[in-house]
């Protein structure tokens, strides 16, 4: 490992740990206001959606692609339907991936 890599990984590990750990370390001294606890209920779906939506609608990272040629969008719609109907995480992941890969494959074959 080069010196540069060593510093990079060390610093990334430290920064990440110093985000994840301190609130746990001081958790016994922290009292959260009830409004904040209420707000945190919305956090998991909010943050996951904010990560996923641009990844799907902007497959090249710069512009929105609302078209059948966007295989990620087609796969995501399939995953949402399966997830909504079955409430089964594994089924959602597997169906979403299958639809995505077969759509992507058809696009390359028929173009």
């Amino acid at each position, binding site marked *: 490992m080069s010196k540069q890599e060593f510093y990079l990984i060390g610093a990334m590990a430290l920064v990440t740990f110093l985000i*994840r750990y301190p609130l*746990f370390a001081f958790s016994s001294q922290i009292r*959260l206001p009830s409004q904040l606890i209420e707000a945190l209920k*919305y956090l*998991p779906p909010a943050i996951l959606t904010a990560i996923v939506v641009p990844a799907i609608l902007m497959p090249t990272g710069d512009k929105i692609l609302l078209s059948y040629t966007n295989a990620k969008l087609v796969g*995501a719609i399939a995953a949402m339907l399966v997830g909504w109907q079955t409430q089964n995480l594994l089924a959602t992941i597997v169906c979403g991936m299958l639809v995505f890969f077969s759509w992507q494959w058809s696009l390359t074959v028929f173009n």
Partner: protein
Amino acid sequence: MSHSQVERYSPSTEFVAGAKAILPLVIGAIPFGIIFGTLAHSSGLFLAGAIAMSALVFAGSAQFIALGLLATGKALPIIILTTFVVNLRHLLYSLSLVTHVKRLSPIWKLVLGFWLTDEVFAVAIHRYNQGDCEASRRHRSTYKHWYYLGAAIFMYINWQICTVIGLTLGYLIPDATSWGLDFAMSVTFIGMVMPYLKNKPMVVTVIVSGIMALLTQNLPHQSGLIVATTAAIMAGIFTNKMNKHQDNV
């Protein structure tokens, strides 16, 4: 009733249940871990570096972005700053867990803190929220941190194995990154969001989050993520207040 109520759970049952609960997310992370290993090679991060990064940083999206920045020759401080901003969401995760981990010993806090990721958080918070109300009191347990640990260890080991598989594949099939394996993470997150969509405030939260994430996509160092999340949470709270207000009239 209460005096005869025996704890239905033990550390080992919780540990196994946690590992089981995260299994779908582990499967979803497999392509993602593999693609990281594959990409590492072409980005100029070699065997020891990639393995060390997965073992010590253990943060999928930050690792990916670091590779992207490395490949385009960005300076070290930029990569570290980006890691910080991208991982800031973990601060919100740990904030959500504060009330649940505060009675644990320092070593538990250290271990659970190191292993806090998107997937582990989603699984652990779901378990912690079970048994809060009278109707679901059979889910009450004093060993929920073992559930968290079981989920975290499974996720961690899987991530290391997938990194190594990806590194191997990277040498064998250099263009595997163009297959779109990164979609696995998106589809996993979709599966994690769907169960939340059971009431109006949550639906509003998700819609606002998606729109805001698109609008703030061009903010530097992925800071749009924090802006979009904050706006979405406020929209959810507001909708909830409006709902209650309507019910009261």
